[in-house]
């Protein structure tokens, strides 16, 4: 750790800082910049600011003023939540935690100078940088689709207007129409997400358009909670969902957004809605920072530091860390480890062994919730799974309802953990 490199900041408040607890290491008030205000970034910013109690300057860079959580956006599509119920603002992070919230895009990172440049022209110096940018899509991943087609064939894999669009398209489907999903290859954000979405679409169609069909073209032979989803689709939406795995050409897909056709294994189908969820990669800023290996940013599990740059921590979906799924829960869990590591590096606070956990709840139908989860620890090689569990097929309706209710409690818990 080269703390003396920070002397160029020369803010001259070392004496003042020394009077505060926790005690700052080195000269000047350390600066942490967090890029991305989702489950990873908002949590990290809040925990650093909360723990440091004014000893660290925390700036959070997030382009949107109203953040829509990806988790529970499927429940909005299914009619179980209002869109406004998954929207969050950064007001408390600013007012209660003293975080400097900057609504702008981070467009450049100078790792030698340790600065982040913003689309609006600002430059933010940092001692530690936390990147939690989420995902972007791999160009050319689905033949015929690029981001310019997202209004015709939405991905709805970043929540907000895309979720609204997809919901509106589903509700406008003609009687007996066809909804198609192009499912992504591994690894991708929220492993059960596409299949929870299929369940939610089926739930809407069963009520409004019961003769409609759902086609899922999938390049993966198996997917998260597969037995649970398939059981649920049979129970609640018998005959509606046609899942086409790679054995039947589900991995050989092209789309034509103008003609609204999907071609699976050479067979063209006219569809009414096409939800294209392309292959994913780390949010672009990781590429710009030059900390990717392939499509993702490798990190050290003990601290969530980039393996390319010890002054940068990377969180959540953008990382290549080992066994944890890309989920909001994981990002939130990783953020707490990173916050601890950053505070320990910049102040005299203690460092503890990294612990991680994840649980993903999915809703299959009204009051039919399932979950999968695991705990993890850091090894020198990766974040490694310790123990886990998954809901069983054939569980009682009462347990499934309790699982769904638990997920509502979790949503309230994690969003107050992120946004205060």
């Amino acid at each position, binding site marked *: 750790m080269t703390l003396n490199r920070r002397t160029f900041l020369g803010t001259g408040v070392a004496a003042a800082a020394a009077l505060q607890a926790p005690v700052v290491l080195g000269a000047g008030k350390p600066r942490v910049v967090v890029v991305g205000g989702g489950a990873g970034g908002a949590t990290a910013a809040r*925990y650093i600011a909360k723990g440091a109690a004014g000893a660290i300057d925390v700036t959070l860079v997030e382009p949107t003023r109203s953040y829509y959580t990806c988790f529970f956006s499927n429940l909005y599509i299914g009619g179980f939540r209002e869109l406004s119920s998954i929207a969050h603002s950064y007001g408390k992070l600013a007012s209660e935690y003293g975080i400097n919230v900057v609504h702008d895009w981070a467009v450049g990172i100078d790792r030698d100078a340790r600065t982040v440049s913003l689309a609006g022209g600002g430059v933010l110096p940092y001692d530690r940088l936390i990147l939690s940018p989420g995902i972007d899509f791999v160009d050319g991943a689905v033949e015929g689709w690029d981001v310019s087609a997202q209004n015709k064939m939405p991905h709805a894999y970043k929540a907000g207007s895309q979720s609204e669009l997809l919901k509106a398209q589903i509700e406008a489907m003609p009687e007996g129409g066809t909804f198609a999903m192009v499912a992504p290859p591994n690894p991708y954000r929220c492993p059960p997400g596409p299949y929870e979405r299929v369940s939610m679409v089926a739930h809407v169609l069963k009520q409004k358009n019961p003769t409609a069909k759902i086609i899922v073209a999938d390049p993966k032979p198996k997917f998260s909670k597969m037995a649970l989803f398939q059981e649920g689709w049979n129970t609640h939406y018998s005959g509606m969902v046609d899942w086409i795995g790679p054995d039947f050409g589900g991995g050989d897909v092209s789309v034509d957004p103008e003609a609204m056709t999907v071609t699976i294994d050479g067979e063209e189908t006219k569809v009414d809605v096409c939800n294209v969820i392309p292959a994913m990669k780390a949010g672009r800023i990781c590429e710009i920072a030059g900390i990717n290996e392939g499509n993702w940013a490798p990190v050290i599990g003990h601290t969530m530091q980039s393996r390319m740059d010890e002054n940068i921590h990377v969180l959540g979906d953008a990382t290549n860390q080992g066994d944890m799924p890309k989920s909001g*829960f994981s990002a*939130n*869990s990783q953020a*707490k480890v990173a916050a*601890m590591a950053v505070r320990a590096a910049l102040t005299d*606070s*203690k460092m*503890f062994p990294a*612990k991680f*956990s994840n*649980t993903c709840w999915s809703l299959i139908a009204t009051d039919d919730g399932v*979950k999968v*989860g*695991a*705990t993890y620890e850091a090894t020198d090689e990766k974040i490694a799974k*310790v*123990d*886990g*569990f998954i809901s069983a097929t054939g569980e009682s309706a*009462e*347990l499934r*309802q*309790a699982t*769904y*209710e*638990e*997920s*509502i*409690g*979790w949503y*309230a*818990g*994690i969003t*107050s*953990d992120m946004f205060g």
Partner: protein
Amino acid sequence: MRWLGGAILAGAALTGAARADETARDIGDAARGEGLFQVCASCHQVGEGAEHGTGPHLNGIFDRKVAQFEDFDYSPGILRARRDGMVWDLEHLDAYLTNPKTLVSGTNMEFAGLPDAQDRGDILAYLRRFSASPQNIPEAAPTALKQDVELAPEVLAMVGDPEYGEYLSTECTTCHQTDGEYDGIPVITGWLAEDFVLAMHAYKQKIRPHPVMQMMAGRLSDEEIAALAAYFEALE
């Protein structure tokens, strides 16, 4: 010596699954248990013609799922245990009698608990007479009463590091809200330290049901449970 008290109760409560391979023996002296049951009788009836009172009647309770009477108004805590699949086998009955709140937070059963394993065994031996086919309940595990486990008191008497507890607690607050809201997930504030320690050990030992909590507590060391208790106790 609040902590030591907790340690003794934990020793009594946690003699469960880990001891399942112990030699079976009678659960207790039913005649003595009949006398001891008078403490319970102000709320619970048992035997021919028993009806619900403040608490439900106890006929046929052995190996029945919890909260099965439609005509009884159960607490949310007990209903949660039912959803989690808890069964009144001997192990759970014994844990419940040791300290009801340790097994089921939020239970309406206003009873401090019986620290003495023999007292509990005797009461349970008496209650077993009123289960439909007590002879069908195997004498081997899990119905055999386990001997008291020898716990190292210093382990459970340890004073946790609240700073470590604060870090560990960040795993709890992903799901549990600290503002006291109950939204399908129980609150995590307002626990007495010893109740908290006992409950976490009960999850760790898989006596309390619920897969997430069994997993989360399962990897916590004794020091870590003490640290969490120290932190939550100090939390306003």
